[in-house]
């Protein structure tokens, strides 16, 4: 049992030490640490990558079509080779990182928000509304996502934002169910009953008491889903229902390059590696998060001298 361990510590210092704790816990799990570092790197590339590239890396150059990798003749930008329009693959990967992260990130975020919202209602209100919401989730779950992709593609247009919509919509039930299950458990906890006995409003109960306690599980799920969504996006690209040029994602690059696997493997190999590494990192980080957020497992990562 943790007794009052650091008496007399100020607010700011407490916050600082919490950050330090998190870092230390991350450091203790080397896999998670490397994953987090890699994800940060990818995010950095996504934000700043395109601007540090030399001019012309993204313009096509038909003479350098399918230039092989590890050939420094054309400069370091072509270290990973060139694509079928002679554009540097490295540069394309950097631009692709931006779209990929943006799409996967916003799809996860939107699904998380919508799923959580309805999950909260379904779990908290229960009853008929809860049943209806669950029923709807079932319908969404069994609605073929490819058909949905096509509908969106047709009715709207193949913009990045609409691909996000497709990916988000089909993943909403996952969050909805998880959130509902969490709420059903949390709302029976005594502190919620205590708040109710105090006369707390529904909004207060839901947003101050239930939601914050359901969030850790949802965040872990979201991290896992990030990897899954990235892969779904590439599947959509494969079927021609995903992002369309001039936008580019890693999934689209893998898909476009697949025809060259026998002749210019690097076209789909590097983006494939990028997807896999990012997905693995997200998964490892999610595992770490799960450990950190589980009081029964957390000790594995906690720092010396605390018990």
């Amino acid at each position, binding site marked *: *049992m*943790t*007794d*009052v*361990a650091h*008496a*007399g510590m*100020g*607010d700011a210092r*407490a916050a600082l030490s919490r950050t330090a704790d998190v870092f230390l816990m991350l450091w*203790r799990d080397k896999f998670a640490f490397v994953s987090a570092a890699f994800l940060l790197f990818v995010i950095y590339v996504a934000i700043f990558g395109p601007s540090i590239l030399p001019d012309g890396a993204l313009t096509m150059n038909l003479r350098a079509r399918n230039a092989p990798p590890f050939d420094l003749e054309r400069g370091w930008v072509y270290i990973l080779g060139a694509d079928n329009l002679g554009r540097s693959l490295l540069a394309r990967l950097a631009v692709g990182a931006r779209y990929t992260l943006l799409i996967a990130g916003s799809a996860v975020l939107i699904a998380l928000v919508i799923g959580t919202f309805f999950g909260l209602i379904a779990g908290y209100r229960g009853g008929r509304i809860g049943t209806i919401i669950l029923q709807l989730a079932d319908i969404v779950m069994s609605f073929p996502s490819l058909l949905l992709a096509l509908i969106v593609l047709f009715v709207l247009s193949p913009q990045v934002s609409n691909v996000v919509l497709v990916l988000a919509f089909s993943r909403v039930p996952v969050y909805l169910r998880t959130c509902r299950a969490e709420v059903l458990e949390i709302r029976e*906890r*005594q*502190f919620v*009953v*205590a*708040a*109710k*006995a*105090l*006369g*707390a*409003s529904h909004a*207060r109960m839901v947003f*101050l*008491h239930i939601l*914050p*306690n359901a969030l850790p599980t949802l965040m872990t799920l979201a991290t896992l889903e990030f990897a899954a969504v990235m892969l779904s996006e590439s599947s959509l690209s494969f079927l021609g229902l995903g992002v369309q040029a001039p936008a580019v994602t890693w999934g689209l690059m893998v898909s476009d390059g697949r025809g060259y696997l026998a002749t210019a493997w690097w076209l789909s190999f590097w983006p494939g590696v990028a997807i896999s590494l990012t997905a693995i990192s997200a998964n490892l980080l999610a595992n770490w998060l799960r450990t950190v957020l589980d009081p029964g497992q957390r*000790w*594995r*990562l*906690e*720092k*010396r*001298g*605390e*018990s």
Partner: protein
Amino acid sequence: MTQSLLEVSDLSVRFHSRGTIVDAVKNVSWRLDRGETLAILGESGSGKSVSAAAVMGLIDIPPGEIVSGRIIFGGENILNLPLAAREEINGKRIAMIFQDTLAALNPVYTVGHQITESMTAHGVERGEAKRRAVGLINRVGIAEPERRFNDYPHQFSGGQRQRIMIAAAIAMEPDVLIADEPTSALDVTVQAGILKLLKKLQAENGMGILMITHDIGVASEVADKVAVMSQGEVVEQGDIRSVLDAPRHPYTQRLLEAVPGRRGYLQTGATAGDLLLEVKGLSKFYDLTSGLLKTATGRKIRALDDVSLSLSKGEVLGIVGESGSGKSTLVNALLGLIEPTAGEVLFRGQSMLLEDQTAMRALRRRIQVVFQDPTASLNPRMSVARIISEPWAIHDSVLPRGQWPGRVAELLEQVGLSPDHAARYPHQFSGGQRQRIAIARALALQPEVIICDEAVSALDVSIQAQIIELLKDLKRQHGLSYLFIAHDLPVVRDFADRTIVMQSGQVVESGRTQDVFERPQHPYTQNLLASRPKEERHRGRALETLK
């Protein structure tokens, strides 16, 4: 010195978790003889279960590490035995039963299977084992053993499950039975039955029993010898009577001092105060439904059946009942969490079951609650300051926001905590401290009545005593009244002016605490009081005769 049946000497165990070392027990020694019961008495975190786990080979290594010591059984140090030999001893010569009967029995196998398995694991032929299992179920006092053989753990009550676990444990007629808090989760009357059963079995086959418990009453009921543990060390051991009657170690003294039910009844004089809370004919029926479509079956569960009670200013009303007695339903009805089927709740003569939300909220402010489990009743994601000030956030006219920090500090001091604690989170506190935070929150709205729903039941005795003291202090300072709900008789005996006893949703007995305890009218009350361990009864009567 003759050889003991089981002897632990100089045992030290520590646990490693990344970079952290916890000394669970340090140089613990004790011995157990045939036909004898040794109680290991200690509060949570004292390490009282660790030596038993070491005997059974249940300490996972790593993260555990046995630093030193020997465990002599049958002339051998069993710590040195290979796994196969240990498995040979476990269940056959030394058996063990656990506290949480629901978790400790495998939910996916029938009880018959699990009892049988204890025998087949030690070479008894299957058919024979099954036959004997039925006999065992009968022997531990469960009716229709043949039919129940094929039932699953969840189909039994808590007491029955403990009997099943005992049946599995004694299947091979072990020399030693280790019982780890076997009755802590059970009602008093059920506890009495289990303890009686253990004694009967001991008398029949002369096994030695190691009883691990936090409950002095239980220890005194069954044990011949006692070892008192604190912070991983045995601080005192010896004959049970001598230790309990003349404790030598300060820790033992403090512990015994804290045990409730030893102080005599409150000299009540406060009944003259205004009538605050009045409950008239309160009932709550649930329709029994089945299936997804919630079709009513026509049957009703009477969770609360025509309950009436009253509470005056400055008074403590104890409500005693076992699980299923309806006391939780009563609390929920008083807090407005459920809607009663019939009856009235009046606060200072005003009905509390009105439709008018605003009026209701104002009324409700006067009644606050402290729950049983302080860990569960505080939102782990809120700081103490936010927890305590939440009532003001909800009832926004009570206190202007600017005054919140000051008032939080005041309240923390009142409940015996430091104002510095406001910025911290619940998990940084011990159980007793958390309950103080919960009390501070209850006080925030300056209520007239506080409902203590098993508020001290989950705490160790010493902490329990501190919290009761705090409640008493606050009552004095603020003229509070308490509705004190408990399954634990001694606490009520110490603290309540009047007591009512509930059974199956009904009030079966009510009156002055002393009258209820001394001259119970209803057979249920009599049974309840008779089920208390004899130590308590003995103590109570002794004190009474002193007066």
